[in-house]
């Protein structure tokens, strides 16, 4: 079930810990990209964690986040019917 900014932004990254999510936020901020921290969608989650969603049209920034050394557990495109691995 899509909620909040997930419906609008359509790209989401999941992380092993909050520290990594916060580091990714800093990267997106550097590039002036809007984002929203959200609870990791249930289908992508074990336990509790925070995910980062941002506009799909800025998906190239995934490369910047990776280059910055941020550790992620997944990067997805958000469809109404589910989550697909994001390709950029």
């Amino acid at each position, binding site marked *: *079930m899509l*909620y*909040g900014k997930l419906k609008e932004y359509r790209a989401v990254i999941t992380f092993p810990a909050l520290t990594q999510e916060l580091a990714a936020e800093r990267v997106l901020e550097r590039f002036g990209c809007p984002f929203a921290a*959200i*609870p*990791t969608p*249930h289908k992508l*989650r074990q*336990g*509790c964690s925070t995910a980062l969603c941002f506009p799909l049209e800025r998906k190239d920034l995934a490369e910047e986040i990776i280059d910055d050394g941020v550790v992620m557990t997944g990067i997805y495109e958000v469809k109404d019917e589910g989550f697909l691995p994001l390709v950029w």
Partner: protein
Amino acid sequence: MIYLDNAATSWPKPPEVAAEVNRMLTEFGGSAGRGGHEFSLQAARRIFWTRQRLAELVGLNDPSSVVFTANATQALNEALFGLLKPGDHVIASSVEHNAVARPLRVLTRRGVEVSWIPAIGEDWFSLEEYRRSFRPNTRLVVTVHASNVTGALLPVEEIGVIAREHGVPYLLDASQTAGVFDLAALPADLIAFPGHKALLGPQGTGVLVIRNKISLQPIIVGGTGSMSESDEQPDFLPDALESGTQNGPGIAGLGRGVAFIQSQGMVTLREKEQALCQRLLDGLSEIPKVLVYGGLDARKKAPVVAFNIGDADSMLVGHILDTAYGIISRAGLHCAPYAHRVLGTLDRGVVRFSPSHFTTVEEVDQAVGAVAEIASQV
């Protein structure tokens, strides 16, 4: 914003708490216990004042038996790693927070055996199983006082009495009950709690109370401002367990929080909190599709209310409460997978409301209303 996450950390704090932290930073900024000059002594006196307030709170004459830590987790670690050795046996409940569960997990790898007393039905701690679980090498009993997930209280008086009958010390995790219930008369030998929840102190403060001269091996050793001619850790309290520079501003602020509770009266504050919790429980239990966990009687709980809406993911509900209604709750697993395993909610967690005596009736009603609206749409 309606803040209902006091079980994580209390907010707001009484204004005198922040004022005291500020004074410590601006006026009494010396290094307590180091240097012997008046500037450091001024800071040390304010920390000692907090030590005395806490000793009163737990019914101790000797403030030295009150040990400051960074949080309840550190206090629990000091007790567990300080007491247990390979070959020891420890008895714990099946609903422990990770602050106990994770150290015990590590200790089992080091040769400590754990008996986890099961929850049976509505009973979160089977006293029958507990009585049967003692062994010749039982070295410690440890339980939580109230579950941080549902607020349900364990039978800690009975647990402590039975432990005493076997000559085994009892470590009580009072994280959700210090400042709410009277701990002074409880038959616990070690009590761990945070300063930043119901005691209304700043984050970065915790306490380990040590009764009956129990000796713990310190897990952190270093400078204590005492016996400085020696490279051996002092063996007297509190120095043995307080190495390094403390969070002086935090501890001083904690003292003001405790003093606030003492001046208002813990019983008075508890009555107010209990009434708010009962209002929450009554309101939530009337909403179709809402399932409340841990019983509907606020008298038998710490001020914590856990619920779910239908099959909805708890974190989704918590997110909607936050972003659409400005209501701050805590959803998910609450660092307590064992409790969620007992509840059957390990997959989706629960939503937790935890009011304080600063919460208003209107805020409780708004929270119930918000849950009802979400329930009608989910």
